[in-house]
């Protein structure tokens, strides 16, 4: 085996213009739709905005987790394409921007912001020391600062390593990642509670944070997988990424598809078994009207299809199949967040119209544009990472 400090040559190609064009078109269309939506029905547009926010946070935090877990575990297989999740984590930088309209429209989104409703409701009154707008804003700012701070720390060190080849920077990043994981677990739980669970302020589920985390990982992983496979198949990445790397990505997606199903079913089973009216109404809303079809579709889209699709070994190794699976899982995550948030807006029918069309369009657009700017600002392969040689040589 050659020495780890041996310099590996890599020439970066310009960002694929096909992807950038798709991103720009999606972004413009999505932005027009949601702005028009704000003029037509601002509550409904705010719900779409909230879903966009939650999925963006998912992509950012999922990528952040991917980077962090690689450092902590000393994983080798993912180092060669670690820059892709590092770029994707950049969506955290625009998350506060997306959160501003959500916060400004919180009156339409969150029942607990209505003073008079809180005063006449004993349960909400008791929760009001936590669920009030000032504290809500403080918490959001706190999460954003932490996430962006950790993201910038990790990527700055990683980028510096390209020039200095300094192995110490990896060690620093391992320590930062370990500290990050603690804050990560707490903030993602509280963010899920604040932004999603408090849509129904009477409802509570102690597992909602884990539920959101399971989806988050899938979202981050699926987007990263898509771009890794796309870049590699079109020769943007360094030579040497083979089906073994693909298999690991596919297995990761497969594992967390199961993890999501496990968590989602645990949440359902406990509430179903206990049968307490203060908990069951949340599921009943999703089991009435046309929501019942949506709920059944969610199980099939989010679990059954990806499970059987990724079950066999060849489908994890075949780049085309993996591309399809990652796109599917990413859109399944949008469906999942839609299912979590939208029944609060309309309990009887699934609100699907042109305003909701802005959700996938704007998401795809924003992710590609962020990826484009991050791509421009640094190298696509962590050329100075001491694990890079081993990563290219990685075999199962």
């Amino acid at each position, binding site marked *: 085996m050659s020495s780890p400090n041996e310099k590996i040559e890599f020439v970066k190609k310009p960002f694929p213009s096909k992807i950038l064009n798709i991103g720009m078109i999606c972004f413009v269309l999505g932005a027009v739709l949601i702005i028009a939506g704000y003029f037509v029905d601002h509550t409904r547009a705010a719900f779409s905005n909230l879903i966009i926010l939650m999925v963006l946070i998912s992509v950012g935090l999922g990528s952040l987790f991917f980077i962090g877990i690689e450092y902590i575990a000393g994983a080798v297989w993912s180092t060669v394409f670690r820059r892709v999740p590092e770029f994707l984590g950049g969506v955290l930088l625009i998350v506060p921007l997306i959160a501003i309209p959500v916060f400004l429209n919180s009156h339409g989104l969150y029942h607990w912001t209505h003073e008079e409703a809180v005063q006449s409701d004993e349960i909400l009154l008791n929760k009001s020391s936590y669920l009030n707008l000032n504290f809500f804003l403080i918490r959001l700012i706190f999460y954003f600062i932490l996430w962006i701070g950790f993201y910038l720390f990790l990527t700055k060190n990683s980028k510096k390593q390209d020039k200095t080849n300094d192995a110490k920077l990896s060690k620093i990043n391992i320590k930062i990642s370990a500290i990050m994981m603690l804050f990560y677990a707490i903030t993602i739980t509280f963010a899920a509670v604040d932004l999603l669970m408090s849509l129904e302020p009477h409802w509570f589920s102690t597992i909602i944070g884990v539920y959101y985390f399971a989806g988050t990982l899938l979202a981050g992983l699926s987007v990263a997988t898509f771009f890794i496979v796309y870049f590699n198949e079109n020769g943007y990445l360094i030579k040497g990424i083979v089906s*073994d790397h693909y298999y690991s990505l596919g297995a990761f997606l497969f594992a967390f598809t199961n993890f999501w199903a496990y968590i989602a*079913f645990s949440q*359902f*089973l406990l509430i*179903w*078994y206990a*049968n307490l009216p203060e908990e069951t109404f949340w599921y009943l809303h999703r089991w009435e009207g046309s929501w019942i079809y949506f709920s059944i579709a969610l199980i099939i889209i989010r679990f059954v299809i990806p499970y059987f699709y990724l079950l066999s*070994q060849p489908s994890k190794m075949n780049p085309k199949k993996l591309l399809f699976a990652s796109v599917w899982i990413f859109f399944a995550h949008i469906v999942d967040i839609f299912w979590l948030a939208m029944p609060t807006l309309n309990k009887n029918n699934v609100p699907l119209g042109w305003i909701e069309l802005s959700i996938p369009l704007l998401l795809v657009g924003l992710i590609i544009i962020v990826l484009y700017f991050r791509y421009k600002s640094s190298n696509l392969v962590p050329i100075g990472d001491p694990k890079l040689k081993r990563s290219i040589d990685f*075999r*199962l």
Partner: protein
Amino acid sequence: MNEKIIFAYTALFDKPDDIIKAAKSTEEAGYTKYDVNTPYPVHGLFSAMKLPPSKLGYVALVVGLSAAIGILLTMYWIAAIDYPINIGGKPFFSFPALVPIIFEVTVLSASIATVLALLFYFFKFPNNSYPLHDTNYMKAVSSDKYGLCILADDPKFSIKDVEDFITSLSPIHKEIIYFDEEELKVKPNILEPKFVTFLIVIGIFISGITYFTLNKLMYMEPFTWMMIQTKPIPQEESKIFADGYSMRVPIKGTISRGHMPYLFYGKPEEASVKMQNPLAFSKVNLELGKNKYNIYCSPCHGNFGEGDSRLRGQFPNPPSLHSAKVSNWSDGRIYHVIMEGQNVMPSYASQLNINERWAVVLYVRALQRSLNAKESDLK
């Protein structure tokens, strides 16, 4: 030497790359019965040897699926047909409750079947002899060398050709392995007395320990955790009393403290005339009545006594408490229904004590008045 039967021609290599190259050329040379032994899984051997994917996955799939369907049907039969128990008003056959059981049974059966298939089908247990055992070749490949062996029952096998072929691969060592004559005589048999005896001994040992633990150990001090005591347990046989019952009837003419015998069982008319509500219309009594009513009565009678049950039709709805019939009943008559039950309604005597029953009667009166308020009530 020549009297011995050849099992295989083996070659040792020093590097993983060499063994992959060797495996490739062996495959290309057209040998079908050959094997590669390495100290750890070497990547690329599967494709070099052109091995088909393992069939073990199908064992897991078939057994797992049949176990899942089997346990689903079994649980259906138990929960809905043979022994239906109402659990929290849920349907007898509730799929969500069975999901964890189906999952566990599927995983357990599939993994056990995989292990058994490995042992008995792929490893041909109880055959535990293999000509490569106890050879220098095996010692080398289980520490740091990479071995290739071409079996003698390969259709293309002939000592001369194989020797030339292996020499062309330039191994660091080559060796012919012969069958062990002792081992050739022994035919593996699953019903071999030694093996069967071994199974029987293990079976007796495990069941003996289980029997001892469950039937003897659990009743020894200190494992009983004070479960066995000198005081009589309900329905236990008594050695003191002549009739043999541990549960005793009160002595004639006495009642237990706080207990008030009810004299009007089966006599609603008498109850309605002879009893009067001893409680006053006070806030304390009404609060008590409301509390108990909401706990015990409201599930069927509804929060306001209108007979709008919360049980979603799992139990027949009772008539309204605001009918002329109930409104005209005396307090004692309502008390009688609580004591004795009526139609589908069971007796609530054991849930409510005497004070609470009268408080509930008070609260029912208050409900009736609130829904049929007269003008005079407003003054």
